[in-house]
Structure formats: C-alpha cells, structure tokens
C-alpha cells in the first residue's frame, strides 16, 4: 500500500527515469516486464555451472541443489507449530524507502514488487494457503497522477508477465476492491488472469486494488438490504454468516486472515479487511516493504506461532 508520497525531487527531476521507463514500454510491455521481474529462484543456473571447471561444477551443482532443497523446506524456527493458513500484508513504506535513497517513488514500487514476488514464493513453498496483499487503497487515488499512472502500468505488466508463474506454481489470483475504478485495459487483464487461474488450488493470492474495508462492508450490507427488500430475508434473521457470504473474500477456503503484517512501522489497520480481521493476530515491523525478506517473514510467522489465540475463551 502506498504511504504518504513525498518524492525526493520535484517531478521534472524524475524525467530521466520516467523517460527510461517510457523507452522500455515503447518496446512492448512484455519486454519491460523482463526488466521489472527479477528472478529470485535459488536454483542452479546454467551460467554458474558453465563458468566453473568440470570437476568442481558437479560439486557446486550438488551444493546448490542441496541448498535449494533446504531452501524449499520450512526453516527450523518455524517447525515448532502450525503456520497461519491465511496471511494478510499491508505493504507499506515503498515510497519512503525510495526517498531515503534519493530516488522517485516508482523505484520503491518496483522494489516492492520484487519483495512481494519473494513472499508469494515463500508462502507457496511453506504451505500458507492464502495471501492477501494491500496493493492500492481507495484513498491512494489522491496521489500524484504520475505515480498512480505508474502503478497502474506496473500492475498490468506484473499480471501479464507473471501468468506463467501463477499457473506453474498453482496460484489462483483474485482482485478485491472496486475494479471499475481501474483503467479499462487493467480491468480486462485482471478478469482474464482471475479466470485463467481460478482452478489453481495451492495458494490463493488476493490483491486489494482500489480497496476500502468500509466500502466492502457497506456493499455487503446493501446486498443484504436488497434481499430484505425482496422478501428473501427477514431483518431479524440476518446473521454474521449472511455478511460473510457478501464479502469479497467469500470465495476462498480460508477467508479470515490468521496473521496481518504491516511494514514501515505504522500501527494502524487503515481500512483493510475490516470485518475479516476480527481475530487476526497483528504483527508490526519497522522494516520498509522493499526490505521485507525471508528473515522478516520468518520472524513474523514465528511471532504468530508464539501467540496464544483464545477467541475470547479460556485455554485450560
């Protein structure tokens, strides 16, 4: 999610960087994507093996294979207890991260995307079943137009370029939020990606774009009011599960996050998954989102495992 944007330089100083991006996208979004999506797989690459003498290369490959097998396994710190089934993340701090480096916010968002890719990969590997990420809130539309345009472009290129990975890793993608506020091309692409990945079952990734928790709940209430209006439901029969069915998270197996992570040190929920967070364990870290990596994720998951969840009752 975007934090407050104060770009390090006035917009005209961003021209060289944005001109670079424009030249990339003029060669086609797909070509642009290959630059934005940094591969992070810890597997042996042909270039590594090719650079070494033959005797050492097989040993190195074996080491890399062993390390990648270890990497695929759960870190020992997390083997003590169950992992959360559904993790929600407020990806905050990308703009501030970029500003601290004297770079425009777009630089932060790209780095943020790389961090997200890593976390999605780890989640799938370690058995998390659902991941909801707050990519763009309904309030973020008030950001500078250049930044918003860049983000819409980034979302499009990521969705297009990652479709192969989603299918290979059996990830189903859904978009939650007011999709009608997005550019037409992004709406169309999002619907295609959602359709094509809906049969995947290993990991549900929900991306909140143009999302507001209060609006989602208001829409759920309106749908219920419609049912009351048409005599399908009496007001006194309305229950919490009626609301649950109307929420945008209703289609996944584990709709309630067990753990919410918010980066960059902000201690608020900020209109994210309002109803669904009733019993969620909250984890706040000062790390900015682009710096949030495997170690930080392990720390958050380990913190979850050390909590006693009582749901209002007594444990003994």
């Amino acid at each position: 999610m975007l934090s407050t944007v104060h770009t390090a330089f006035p917009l005209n100083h961003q021209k060289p960087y944005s001109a670079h991006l424009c030249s990339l996208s003029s060669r086609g979004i797909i070509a642009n994507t290959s630059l934005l999506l940094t591969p992070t797989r810890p597997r042996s690459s042909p270039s590594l093996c090719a650079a070494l003498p033959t005797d050492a290369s097989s040993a190195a490959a074996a080491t890399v294979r062993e390390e990648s097998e270890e990497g695929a396994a759960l870190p020992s710190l997390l083997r003590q207890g169950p992992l959360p089934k559904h993790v929600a993340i407020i990806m905050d701090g990308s703009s501030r991260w970029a500003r601290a480096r004297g770079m425009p916010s777009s630089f932060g968002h790209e780095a943020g995307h790389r961090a997200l890719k890593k976390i999605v990969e780890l989640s799938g590997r370690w058995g998390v079943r659902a991941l909801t990420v707050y990519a763009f809130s309904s309030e973020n539309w008030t950001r500078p137009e250049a930044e918003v345009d860049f983000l819409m472009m980034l979302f499009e290129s990521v969705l297009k370029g990652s479709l192969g990975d989603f299918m290979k890793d059996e990830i189903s993608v859904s978009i939650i939020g007011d999709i009608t506020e997005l550019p037409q091309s992004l709406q169309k692409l999002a619907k295609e990606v959602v359709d094509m990945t809906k049969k995947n079952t290993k990991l549900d990734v929900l991306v909140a774009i143009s999302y507001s928790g209060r609006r989602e709940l208001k829409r759920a209430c309106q749908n219920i009011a419609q049912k009351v209006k048409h005599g399908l439901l009496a007001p006194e029969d309305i229950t919490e599960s009626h609301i649950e069915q109307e929420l945008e998270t209703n289609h996944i197996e584990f709709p309630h996050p067990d753990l919410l992570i918010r980066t960059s040190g902000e201690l608020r929920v900020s209109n994210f998954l309002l109803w669904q967070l009733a019993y969620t364990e909250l984890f706040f870290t000062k790390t900015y989102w682009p710096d949030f990596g495997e170690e930080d994720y392990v720390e958050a998951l380990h913190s979850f495992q050390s909590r006693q969840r009582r749901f209002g009752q007594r444990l003994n």
Partner: protein
Amino acid sequence: MEKLEGKPVTNVIKSVQCFLRRCLFLVLSFGPIPKHIAFIMDGNRRYAKRRNMKEGSGHSVGYAALITMLQYCYEMGVKYVTVYAFSIDNFKRKPEEVQSLMNLMMVKIDELLDKKSIVHEFGLKINFWGNLDLLTEPVRLAAEKAMASTINNSGPVLSICVAYTSTNEIIRAINKTCARNKERIPQACINCDGDLLADSINSSISIVDLEENLDTANCPDPDIVIRTSGEARLSNFLLWQTTLSHLQNPSPLWPEFSLRNLIWSILEYQKVYSYLEAGRRRAKKDN
C-alpha cells in the same frame, strides 16, 4: 485516634500527587491530547494467578485499575473513554466465571452511581454498548438505569462494551437501518388494496446510515486503542471505528497499567499525530 490523625496526611499526599499530575498533564497538553481512547483491559486473570490471588479476584483489581485510569484520562482532558469489559465470546467461558462477572458488573454499576464516585466527580455520561438482551435481567436493568440517570450529564463520556462484539453491532445496525427504511415508506406507495409496492422501499444503505445505527453513533472514532498484556489483536472490538486508530499493545497486564504507561501511550500518539490526521482527512474525502 490514629485513623483521624492519618487521614489529613493521606489527603495532603493525595493533593500533592494530584497537583503534580496536573502539572504533568499541562506539559503533555502542549501536544495534541486524544479525544477518545479505547482500552481492551486484558490480563486481569493472569495478574491474579501470578500473585496467587483467589480465582476471580483479578477482575475486581481490574475494576479498581479502571477507575484510576479513568481519573487520569479525564484529568488530562480526554473526552471519551471506551472499555471492552465483556465480549459475547466470553459467554463461552465456564458458567461460574460468567456468573461471577455478571455479579461483579451489577455491584460495580451500582457503585458508579454512588454520590462519591467518579461519575459525579466529572459529571460523566455513561453508555453501555452491546447486545444488552444477552445479559442477565438484573445486570441489564442496572445498565439501563445507569444510562438513564446520566443521560443529561454534559461531562466526559464513559462507554462500557458488555455483551459486545463488533460483528454483532454491525448486524444490529443493518437490522435497524432496514427497519427504519421500511418506516420511511410514504402512504402513496401503498396501493388501493393496502399492499406495499416493493419498489417503494429504499434499500440503499450509505456509510452514514450504518454509522448512525451503530452503538457508537454520536461518538467520534477512537484516536488510540490500547490493549494491555502485550496481545496484538482486536478480538472483535470496534472493528469499524478503529480502522484508522493508532494501535498500541503495551506489555503490562491491565491492573499493572500505570500513569507512566498512559503518558508513554500519549507521547507515542503525539509523535505520529499529523500522519494519523492526514489519514483521517483522506478517508473522509473518500467516503
């Protein structure tokens, strides 16, 4: 004789403490003081267990801690304090614990209405938020009496959430909204046979409609939510109203939460105040 001699000394000490506290609050007030603080009073039972106290006595200690904390908040200038006293989920606890909590609530509600209580000292208005029909009859009547007798008070507000969960509050709000929408049907929308014309029922609900029918209508959203004992979750407390609030989870158990902890909470809030307010303004525009 000893008691009479002790009393003036105790009073002097208390007055000095009060004076020093007010000086401290004056310094704090150079920064923004939150209008509304919400407390999730967690840790009473663990407190009693750690001190080998009688089972169930933790909640009495917790009540005493609450009165002290209210004193500090209202002296500081906080206008609204909300506390999570008893959740609907808590009904699932052992019947003996639930019963003892109901008894404690009844006793303490009566104490609150006593002439020497904090309610009279500050002219507090008391709210009880929650599904009060789930309470035992005597407790429900005591709560309604407390609300009725303080309804015209113009001082700060104390809101006590009992038999409360936020999800239940929202359901009740939808219920009320649908019922009120039905009442607004003009006579012309009923045909000559006396049947209601379905299209005449305005079923659209706005965010304002919902907020007006929540228990918290007429009360601003909490600026800070403090959950004691270090737990970091909302436990179905004011989910709608706290979505922009500053969340804090200090480690002390509720009876251990002291003036020092409260001041630290306020300072933490003051550090990020401008950022919080900017968030609220953006959210208001968006709604």
